């Protein structure tokens, strides 16, 4: 009998302890884990690679990207990331960072942009575009998003992006808004930011490119959107397509004032 009560006491203690532990929410646990990883974010390796690629003479024209105009004038990369996507008069298109980098690789270095766009993520020149985007993003770390959003083209892209965000479809009848339109939603242990408004500093649009610890891959915004569509069971959107840039414009304009932490580190 005495033994039994002892066991009960031990059990009660264990349960009590258990509930004390449970007070720390799952997302707090994840945050702690991320903070531990932050110190050695392997995105730094991609930053170094991207910086090298920017300065290196490459491609059929054997030129560097140092004259590339990312919206703030040829060769200006500081602060360019937080002002993209934007309208470019020379291409007569609204472009995001990655599609703009491909334009520069085409015009300055002589690469075939269409071939790069067809390359799977993480391979060949596409991996180089991601590394370049990682470095350019890192050069704007801590700056606040402030897309120009002044031309008619940019306004059209914003409106189209908004429609795409709410457009439901696919076998699950999902839209971006199904997961990113309400407070307190998550997929497994990952909190999902609300992207219909500014989700805050370093969240959502202000966190990508990011290094994915679980698969050791560097993920650009284009890949992020591509995978969101995969999760919705939509067909993959084309790399640098108007649809992905319209969505980026919508997210970027909404994120106005949010501090960029990119390149971030994710689970």
């Amino acid at each position, binding site marked *: 009998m005495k033994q039994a009560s002892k066991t009960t006491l031990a059990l009660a203690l264990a349960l009590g302890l258990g509930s004390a532990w449970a007070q720390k929410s799952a997302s707090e646990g994840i945050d702690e884990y991320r903070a531990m990883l932050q*110190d*050695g974010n*392997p995105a*730094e390796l991609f930053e*170094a*690679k991207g910086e090298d690629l920017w300065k290196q003479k490459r491609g059929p024209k054997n030129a560097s990207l140092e004259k590339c105009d990312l919206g703030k004038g040829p060769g200006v990369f500081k602060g360019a990331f937080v002002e993209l996507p934007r309208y470019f008069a020379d291409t007569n298109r609204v472009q995001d960072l990655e599609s703009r980098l491909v334009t520069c690789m085409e015009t300055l270095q002589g690469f075939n942009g269409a071939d790069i766009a067809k390359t799977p993520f993480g391979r060949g020149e596409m991996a180089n575009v991601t590394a370049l985007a990682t470095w350019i993003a890192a050069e704007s770390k801590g700056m606040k998003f402030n897309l120009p959003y002044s031309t008619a083209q940019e306004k059209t892209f914003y409106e189209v992006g908004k429609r795409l965000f709410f457009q439901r479809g696919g076998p699950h009848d999902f839209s971006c808004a199904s997961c990113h339109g309400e407070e307190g939603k998550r997929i497994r242990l990952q909190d999902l930011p609300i992207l219909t408004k500014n989700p805050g500093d370093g969240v959502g649009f202000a966190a990508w490119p990011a290094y994915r610890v679980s698969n*050791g891959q560097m993920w650009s915004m284009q890949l992020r959107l591509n995978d969101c569509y995969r999760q919705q069971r939509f067909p993959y959107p084309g790399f640098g397509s108007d649809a992905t840039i319209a969505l980026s414009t919508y997210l970027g304009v909404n994120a106005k004032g949010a501090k960029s932490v990119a390149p971030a580190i994710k689970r």
Partner: protein
Amino acid sequence: MADPMRIRAQASGDKATVRVLMSHEMESGQRKDAAGNTVPAWFIQEVTATHNGKQVLAAEWGPAVSKNPFLQFSVKGAKAGDKIAVTWKDNKGATRTDEATVS
């Protein structure tokens, strides 16, 4: 040639904390590719570190270490201006050495 490492070494008190990021695939040899063939193991096997040329760390690593590994250690007696060099060698015989100055 393998991509460079990122080494940061910071002195505080009588020791310096060294943080190293290595760029390596660290393929475990347990995975299969799309065609069902085993992806051969390819991982860092030996890691050594020196402080002003004198060895202060030697480690044997295996395929369980993550891709793009991060290593942190502290070196007693290291002060600002000292040189910390880290070398890795993988199971294919490739090797890479990078050096950093303690700040």
